[in-house]
């Protein structure tokens, strides 16, 4: 396999990992007003992701850095072309990250309410916008022969992309609810589990519609298999949530999100950003790539350090494996 293909796969893996991990973070953030009826319950929700959200977000930073290093043209065109959605995502991630750290720093209810709003909106916006962005990558955008984005904001808000946004929103909400059912005790666990079933049914409808439309735009045998796998995993997750097998339900939503993202990348390959105008504008894994020398160095770094990162991040989840409930929330 040549280096550009390996790096296409690695970028796909990094974004897949990012959406699986921060997906439930976003879900938990958005469910704050739904499942957290009072301050202590909201603190239970936030503390399920407290120790891990920052490490989860590094998957995005690594994906962005890897894209810059391995496919500079892709990074440059995408980030300058999707300017306003990315700006909104950045502002959301800033507000949300600070909110987790600062919310409990003062006792006033008004203080907490404001940070709650930051967490909710800061989770909602990226949950939708990442779907919009990735749907547009798959669908293609207006690029001129120099690979410059020549569309406007409205070009990004087409029906297919909006369906993509709705799908990631529903998937992350379900994933978050399933995660909460797995990580909490008592009443919150019951409500999260019940909500996961209802959200999962909605997510399944949206995901099937979105993936079908995706395969209609561009497809490959691998993409079809992955899409079917994603739909089955999601249905399995809903079924498991119904019978309160929370570990299986979470595995199901994680696999469903992973396979759905993989479907997009499989359908996209070998393109990385197709042009809807001049075919010469289309960016591919070949014409967007760095030199073989850079890719080779990066491959070595990835081969050595990725297993190490996975090991200690996995260990973190093991350390914080215990469920928490309102009784575990300290007073202060």
């Amino acid at each position, binding site marked *: 396999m040549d280096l550009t293909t390996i790096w296409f796969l690695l970028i796909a893996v990094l974004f897949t990992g990012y959406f699986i991990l921060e997906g439930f973070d976003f879900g938990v953030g958005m469910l704050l007003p739904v499942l957290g009826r009072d301050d202590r319950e909201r603190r239970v929700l936030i503390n399920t992701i407290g120790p891990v959200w920052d490490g989860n977000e590094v998957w995005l930073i690594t994906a962005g*850095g*890897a894209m810059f290093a391995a496919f500079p043209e892709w*990074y440059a065109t995408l*980030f*300058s072309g999707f300017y306003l959605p990315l700006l909104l995502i950045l502002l959301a991630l*800033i507000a949300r*990250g600070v909110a987790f750290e600062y919310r409990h720093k003062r006792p006033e209810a008004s203080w907490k309410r404001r940070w709650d709003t930051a967490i909710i909106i800061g989770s909602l916006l990226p949950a939708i916008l990442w779907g919009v962005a990735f749907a547009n990558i798959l669908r293609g955008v207006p690029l001129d022969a120099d690979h410059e984005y020549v569309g406007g904001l409205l070009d990004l808000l087409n029906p297919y992309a909006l369906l993509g946004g709705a799908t990631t929103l529903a998937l992350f909400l379900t994933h978050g609810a399933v995660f909460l059912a797995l990580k909490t005790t008592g009443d919150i666990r019951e409500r999260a589990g019940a909500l996961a079933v209802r959200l999962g049914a909605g997510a399944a409808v949206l995901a099937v519609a979105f993936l079908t439309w995706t395969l209609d735009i561009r497809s490959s045998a691998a993409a079809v298999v992955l899409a079917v796998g994603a739909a089955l995993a999601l249905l399995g997750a809903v079924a498991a949530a119904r019978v309160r097998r929370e570990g299986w339900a979470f595995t199901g939503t994680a696999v469903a999100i992973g396979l759905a993202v993989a479907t997009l990348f499989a359908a996209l390959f070998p393109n990385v950003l197709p042009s809807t105008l001049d075919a010469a504008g289309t960016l591919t894994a070949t014409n967007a790539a760095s030199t073989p020398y850079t890719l080779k160095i*990066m491959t070595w770094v990835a081969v050595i350090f990725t297993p190490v*990162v996975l090991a200690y991040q996995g260990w973190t989840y093991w350390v914080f494996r215990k469920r928490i409930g309102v009784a575990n929330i300290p007073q202060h």
Partner: protein
Amino acid sequence: MDALDVARWQFGVTTVYHFLFVPLTIGLSVLVAILQTMWHRTGNERYLKLTKFYGKLFLINFAMGVVTGIVQEFQFGMNWSDYSRFVGDIFGAPLAIEALVAFFLESTFIGLWIFGWDRLPKRAHLASIWAAAIGTNLSAYFILAANSFMQNPVGYRINPDSGRAELTDFPAVLTNKVALITFPHTLAGSFLVAGSLIVAVGLWHVIRNRDSADTGAYRFATKFGSWVVLIASAAVLFTGDIQGKIMTDVQPMKMAAAEGLYTTESPASFSVLTIGSLDGSREVFALKIPYLLSYLGTGDPNGTVHGIDDLQAQYATQYGAGSYTPIIPVTYWSFRFMIAFGLAAGAIALLVLWTQRKGRTPSSKWLLRAGLAMPVLPLLANSFGWIFTEMGRQPWIVFGEMLTRNGVSRSVSLAEVLTSFTAFTLIYATLAVIEVKLLLRYAKAGVPDVSEQPPTDDADDAERPLAFAY
């Protein structure tokens, strides 16, 4: 005003802002780790109290560093896409490696440290803060290696077909002599900030909170921080001196611009301050130290320092017509402010140590004021240092290879970049106010009570409150 100007302002504002938090994160992560190690070694509760106290201030600051850092990575692609295309083959690699090797380590282990007080064995918990501190410092190295390529491009060639820079020697990029000296200089500057914060907060409690049962802890912190500041000051001067010589070698225009030296001189004197026209072309009064600029630039008091006019003429021949001179008032004054504010922190630290000699307790109102100013001084020094080094590189974005105006995104409109600049400025200003207020609140609250230690075993008490929760 066009998109280029706004993009430059945005980069300046967001980068200087980001680097208000980074030095504290770099320095405090290590200093808190040292305090916790002292507790671990001695079992003395005083060190545990200080670990938790300064750890809390560290975390209030840490969050801001993380979220403003994401903007930096995205900004290259959003506002500087032609720059990203030009250097991506080289510049992207250290950024990606930073994320994978350093930032994962920092972010994952900081989570373990924050929440792990009752979940991890003591040793593993101590190891977590060290892992986070190592990640943070390693992260600085990769970012500075990337920046050093912009100052002194090495290990590359220009592909004649694509016109882009391509990596030919990665070890050369990582061992760029600018990177090797900028890294210790930046770390020293960071410890200057972190040590100063420890002194300021400790001194406030020593003077204003005399009857506290924890006075011993605060006195220790004040001395500990002062020594850190003194050692860091020496390191800043030492590394800065070497850096000046390397800079004169690889970016002579920057050294000339630091002095506003128009004609080549040997020996060249250093002006402490100049009153006259802002760009130094006409002076009314100047306080000058003879031979100093020659020494700073070349190590020889009689060494030749090239002047702006000569370099401008040389570059115009080499790179074609155009101005290759940075904005002199900015480089002249930022260079002086960097040095002055940095030295001031060291001087105050010396004063603080003197007033506490042989067990004395300082009480002077003036000392307290000077002490409280301490963290601000090196922060300003750090900011001016970055403003100097980045503005001194202009008009280049990659020295000798690409002009800043050619690096900007062509597909991004003025309206878009204005929206983004306004949004970041507003949210950053709001968060700055909130952050400073929180820091003051927690600094005043003082060291926590640590008499009730949570059990560190894995006892199955499902109802036990967490040692730490958001």
